[in-house]
């Protein structure tokens, strides 16, 4: 039992890590807590659903659609809304993204109705001895690993990636070095949204799709950022895995009811004891 649960936890954790990386990028670069991260994930899921429904497009292939699409959405949101509050007190950006998240969820309710949708593409599991691994979860994990690795390589190796990291560390210095900070902000928000969308696409095959589905991912992403340390991108990875593990294991030993409280208590403890994150040495 424990073995099964640990593996389930890690599978889920990889997905959390990818989605949280998106949130972390936005926070690291702009110091904006994007409360609408969950709804962006939801939009990614719906994109996959509709393309599957209308064109029979393989849900995993739809990553090619959902990620760029939400990248654009993210850029637009940043350009027209978020950019105006990047320098304002944090209250403003929090409230703004909060407002955007409500608007997105309800737009989805109006456009798509609250009816549950599902992408019946891959059901069943791989059976390995006493363990059963849901096929869709395993594949989601694999894709998450690939995408996250891709994101890291991008950040480390490309000029744009380095520019993004530079702005995360110090906006003024980056500007002095000739980086177009405004453009970097848009791109970072776009990438963050694209990562959320990827999460949505992968999740679309596993769970029921409905407008409110993203909310829980917003909180989980915040949690991962706290665990890993804000601005600490590799930290987000480990934080995600840790969260996945803790969730599944606590469900086993406690009841499903108490599950959510465990995550929350963990959050408060970490914030109290090591606010810079479990895994980071440098303060951001």
């Amino acid at each position: 039992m424990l073995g099964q649960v640990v593996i389930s936890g890690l599978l889920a954790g990889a997905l959390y890590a990818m989605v949280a990386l998106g949130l972390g990028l936005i926070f690291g670069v702009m110091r904006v807590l994007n409360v609408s991260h969950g709804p962006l994930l939801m939009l990614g899921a719906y994109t996959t659903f509709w393309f599957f429904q209308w064109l029979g497009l393989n849900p995993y292939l739809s990553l090619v659609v959902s990620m760029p699409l939400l990248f654009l959405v993210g850029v637009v949101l940043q350009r027209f809304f978020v950019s105006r509050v990047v320098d304002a007190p944090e209250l403003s950006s929090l409230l703004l993204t909060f407002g955007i998240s409500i608007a997105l969820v309800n737009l989805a309710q109006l456009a798509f109705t609250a009816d549950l949708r599902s992408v019946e593409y891959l059901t069943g599991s791989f059976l390995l001895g006493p363990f059963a691994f849901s096929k869709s979860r395993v594949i989601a994990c694999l894709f998450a690993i690939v995408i996250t690795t891709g994101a890291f390589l991008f950040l480390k190796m490309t000029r744009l990636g380095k520019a993004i990291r530079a702005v995360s560390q110090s906006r003024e210095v980056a500007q002095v070095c000739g980086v177009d900070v405004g453009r970097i902000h848009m791109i970072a928000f776009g990438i963050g949204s694209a990562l959320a969308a990827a999460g949505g696409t992968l999740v679309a095959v596993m769970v029921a799709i409905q407008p409110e589905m993203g909310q829980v991912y917003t909180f989980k992403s915040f949690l991962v950022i706290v665990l890993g340390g804000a601005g600490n991108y590799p930290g987000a990875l480990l934080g995600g895995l840790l969260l996945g593990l803790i969730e599944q294991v606590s469900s086993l030993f406690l009841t499903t009811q108490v599950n959510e409280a465990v995550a929350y208590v963990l959050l408060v403890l970490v914030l109290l004891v090591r606010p810079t994150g479990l895994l980071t040495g440098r303060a951001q």
Partner: protein
Amino acid sequence: MATLLWSLGAVTLALLLGTAPAQAQAPIKIGASLSLTGTYAKPGTYQKEGYEVCADELNAKGGLLGRKVEFVMYDDQSSTQTAQRLYEKLITEDKVDAVMGPYSSGITESVAGITEKYKKVLVSPLAATTSIFRQGRKYIFMVISPAEVYLEGLVDMAARRGLKTIAVINEDTLFPKASTAGTVDMAKKKGLQIVLQESYPKGNTDFSALLVKLKAANPDIVAAATYFDDAVAITRQMRELNVNPKMFAVTVGGDIPEFYTLLKQNGEYVYGSTQWDEALPYPGQKEFLSAYTKKFKHEPSYHAAAGYAGCLIYAEAVKRAKSLDADLVRAELLKLKLRTAFGDYAVDHDGFQTAHKMVMIQWQDGKRIVVWPEDLANGKARYPTPPWNQR
């Protein structure tokens, strides 16, 4: 400052004006709040449709007490607070002649206090929780079978086949909890052993850890007291984790067509409980079905049938009392024994339903087949449910 005063003044004025006494109207106005949006949107809408079909039928036959019947319905958005405000509005402002119940036990419980206060009879077609009817209320009447017996069929069938162990999981809200309590009780009486009993929060989507525990307990039967979303998720995740009980039943949600539309093949062999099925041999079924499908272009669910029946039951009591007076109607409702397209109606002194029978269906080849009780069944149960990888 001035704006504030003006707006407060305007509001007060509007309210005062709105309370002018309404003229006595010829049609009988029946008020209700239904959940047309929010979590209960689907069943709430079906219930509303049932009310409308009933009104049409009554009016086609000359109305009630010689007057037309007209429903005044609002959307309570699946919220108890809103529903309370709306019933108060219906009774004190719209001055309806009568009221009918809303959707769900929770909302019915919250508005029952209001209807008792104003002494209005409340026939509640979609409230299945016993506790609502055992608080000494005088004007509330139950139409459907109580939550506790939803899975009576499952337990009965299991015991007759000599099965020994059962796991019960439920959503942590009013109705599923009552259902679980009843199921556990019946199971124990029939000598079944409860190997796992756990509840999960409303809105939970990940049942994997719970199902891992359940699989380890290896029950013969799995009973899930659910609503719709969780029923679908649990079934799907049982497939993913390769959980193979010999019988698996859900409560609400298992009997709605969307269950199979979403799950397709994975929905086969699942048992569901329902208050009504169109195949049941009750009088007036054909007329109800044709009137409903003609008006709404889709098949009715049991919620629609219950709404329809509840309204007919109320109308019958009014006819016998020859009046709309709450106490006279109440006396008739207590005595009344009636069989409608929905089934039997008879209540005890608390207004608690005693005659109506639940049935169990099973999904076979994409169709719902009634498999229990025997005298109402139109097919045999496919037993045992084969393991996932052998289908």
